């Protein structure tokens, strides 16, 4: 139990400091560790937890809460909640410290031309990582023609309309529950 909690804490605090461009970029690593390395869950659970976290309120990376919860679920519900708490704090506290301390000398650095260099350098990397995250989620969840169609329709809706993504996911869930059950 302690070992699992430590693994959760270590994994997410490392990922916290690597999440350049938001939490979703570390999804590939989270998947590698939670499914491949520690066997906390299978692919299907991982993807389902990710979708649940996307449809729930909060910052984009609440999936860490659910991964921590599932990792510690074998030890009972109180420990599962503790695991969820440890995962959430490990994911959000280290990066917050960084923002806090960096904020204090940010002004000195504001005029440096390197600021734009770093920004321009981070963007393609985070794009590649989000692409990898999309790949992992799609590989597990899109395996029939109807789900592929729904994915493409969802993509077009997000790109070309201002539809609320949570509303869209809810409607997609109801459609698939009605027709694909």
């Amino acid at each position: 139990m302690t070992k699992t909690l430590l693994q959760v804490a270590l994994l997410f605090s490392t990922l916290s400091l690597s999440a350049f461009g938001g939490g979703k970029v570390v999804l590939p690593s989270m998947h590698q560790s939670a499914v491949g390395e520690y066997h906390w869950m299978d692919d299907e659970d991982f993807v389902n937890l990710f979708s649940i976290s996307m449809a729930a309120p909060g910052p984009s990376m609440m999936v860490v809460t659910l991964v921590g919860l599932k990792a510690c679920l074998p030890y009972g519900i109180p420990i599962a909640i503790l695991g969820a708490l440890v995962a959430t704090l490990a994911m959000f506290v280290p990066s917050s410290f960084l923002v806090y301390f960096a904020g204090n000398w940010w002004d000195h650095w504001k005029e440096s031309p390197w600021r734009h260099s770093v920004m321009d350098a981070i963007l393609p990397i985070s794009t590649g990582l989000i692409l990898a995250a999309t790949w992992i989620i799609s590989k597990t969840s899109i395996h029939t023609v109807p789900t592929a169609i729904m994915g493409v329709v969802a993509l077009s809706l997000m790109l070309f309309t201002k539809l609320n993504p949570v509303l869209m996911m809810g409607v997609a869930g109801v459609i698939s529950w009605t027709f694909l059950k």
Partner: protein
Amino acid sequence: MAELAGLFLFIGLTSFGGGITAYIRRLVVSQKRWLTDEEFLPGLGLVQLLPGANVVGLAVYIGNHLKGPLGSAVALGSLLVCPFISTCALGFLYFHAGKTADTKALLAGITAAACGLMASMVFEAGEKAIKGAFDIFLIILTFALVRGTPSFELLNHKIPSIPHLSVPMVILIVAPLAVWWHRPRPKKELPEQIGEAKP
């Protein structure tokens, strides 16, 4: 302080997915007038540059700006408490229900839509990221290193496969290359700009 906590409780409850930095700006700068744009925008630039979710970083930045370190902690805690409780509740509901035909069908639709949402984020990020062919190369390189590559033959040489690497490792490899490529370079001076050189 209570107002600060209240605002971030509200943001935590009403924020879904991404794209809510504009929403925070409207609340904090336009409505509450706690910060001016001159104070808010550098903070936004900072949190976009540093790792972590932008919303979380902004909560820390705004909290610190208004009430110091305690303000940061209060803003962060208020932002996360409601999402934490609701996410845990949904998680227990999921594991309690188990993989029945109902949950499978419901989640199949939600995950398919989530894939579409993620794919749209790739397009949005790519649009900002791609300034030249080298950026496309960086995107593919990052993707390949995270996913791992199969071995293949190239001009009768067997190229060994690359195992997948963790995200921190990939960043350590690709970031120096990317920063070097985007390093500050003297702009080609156009004739009319020569006169405006540094004093």
